[in-house]
């Protein structure tokens, strides 16, 4: 099987991340093969993304037998291995953080395995900062893997660390380093299910009103944490409650859809984050606007349907809601 970098995609095309099936995976009812078989059986979009540390025991150390099995499953179920979500676990040692070179080594090993398994993109994280990305370039080139830094709340395009990356990419001018926008960065509302879960956990209404007020402020998300801490404490919020409210800022930002145009040539993959589907639409994310931006902006690549409602509900089937989301997005892309 060829590395899927050789697969040409015209325009934005939907894909499937196994992360959307986290509830099903953790239930223990599936093996990796039976989960892939389920994706095929339900005719979900066939470009597949996996989280290495979720789906593969021992990752990133895998046997040759596993590599062979995995490639066989891709063929058998007619799936395209597209992206591996890799992690930059810089705080893995309790105490001293990994150095730049140690982080490079940690992520490079995952890039190598992603390549062996037939993938063409890895999603990296903001804990692998610009100096790490610079040193990862030779590995990305060697293994023919595009390494995309995930732009996930609170890392919007105006975050200083994102600006440092944009400057690095400007300097290096390489197709092997890029970005993976996460639609959680472009939301129009906090999902109702999240607010309901706060109420269910006994959070007071003033605290819930506070997070909504702060979220709607027009300054960058990463500058909102301090205000939440200060005003939340004044309202009697406990550290555990404020930690839970922090999740709103760490998951959702309000970057306008058209702002993605600024980095369009550097986008190597997209996480089509979503939380719920109501009457065939995602109420908290302006998908019609986003799809228009990526289609008209000339993006040629995949958008993984990334349902993350498991953070506040286990009453939804990941497989069912991903199907609905892919039909919704495919319809928008055809307009």
């Amino acid at each position, binding site marked *: 099987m060829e590395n899927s970098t050789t697969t040409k995609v015209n325009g934005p095309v939907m894909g499937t991340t196994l992360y959307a099936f986290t509830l099903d995976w953790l239930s223990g009812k599936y093996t990796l093969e039976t989960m892939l078989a389920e994706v095929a059986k339900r005719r979900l979009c066939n470009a597949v993304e996996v989280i290495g540390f*979720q789906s593969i025991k021992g990752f990133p150390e895998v046997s040759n037998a596993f590599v062979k099995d995995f490639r066989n499953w891709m063929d058998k179920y007619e799936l395209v291995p597209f992206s591996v979500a890799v992690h930059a676990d810089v*705080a893995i040692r309790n105490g001293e953080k990994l150095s730049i070179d140690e982080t490079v080594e940690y992520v490079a090993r995952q890039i190598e395995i992603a390549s062996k398994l037939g993938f063409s993109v890895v999603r990296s994280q903001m804990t692998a900062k610009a100096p790490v990305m610079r040193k990862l370039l030779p590995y990305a080139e060697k293994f023919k893997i595009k390494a995309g830094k995930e732009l996930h709340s609170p890392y919007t395009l105006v975050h200083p660390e994102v600006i440092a990356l944009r400057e690095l990419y400007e300097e290096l001018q390489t197709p092997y380093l890029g970005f993976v926008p996460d639609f959680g960065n472009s939301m129009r509302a906090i999902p109702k299910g999240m607010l309901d879960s706060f109420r269910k956990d006994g959070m007071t209404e003033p605290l819930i009103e506070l997070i909504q007020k702060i979220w709607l402020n027009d300054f960058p998300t990463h500058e909102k944490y301090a205000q939440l801490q200060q005003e939340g404490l004044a309202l009697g919020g406990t550290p555990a409650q404020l930690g839970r409210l922090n999740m709103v800022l760490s998951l959702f930002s309000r970057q306008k859809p058209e702002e993605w145009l600024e980095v369009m040539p550097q986008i190597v993959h997209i996480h089509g984050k979503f939380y719920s589907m109501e009457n065939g639409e995602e109420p908290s994310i302006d998908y019609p606007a986003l799809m228009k931006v990526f289609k008209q902006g000339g993006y040629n690549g995949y958008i993984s349907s990334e349902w993350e409602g498991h953070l506040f509900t286990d009453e939804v089937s990941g497989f069912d809601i991903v199907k609905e989301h892919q039909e919704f997005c495919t319809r928008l892309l055809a307009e």
Partner: protein
Amino acid sequence: MGPLDKNILKDDALKATASGFNLKVRSHWYRSLPLSSLGNLQVKINGLTIPHTQIKIELDGAIYSMEQVASLYKTWWFVLDPLALHITENNLQLKKGNQYNIEVEMGLLIPYVLTGKEEKPLLAASIVSKNLTCN
């Protein structure tokens, strides 16, 4: 934290042994973590706290003390595998078929989510309490 907390204790988690009981606990995070991520683990049975010195952790056939855990950053805890806690407890004398209340408090240090000015790993904390029938 959320719905994934329900994974921590499954219905078949409790088993009586000659020296106390075994308790299978599972992660409430979505991905595998090193064992060093287990930043906090407290176990109570019928309201009684089990001291750490009475807990050994079995993972992939190896046995670790609670003291060792913090240094085990190269020992991977696969997200679908339970930790088998071997607990020494002489007072209750658990009986098969009886029900016991088990409370587990689990704090996981997330090595890629850094918080605060000092950039400490996020402590994802969960607490679950469940009446379990002893096997």
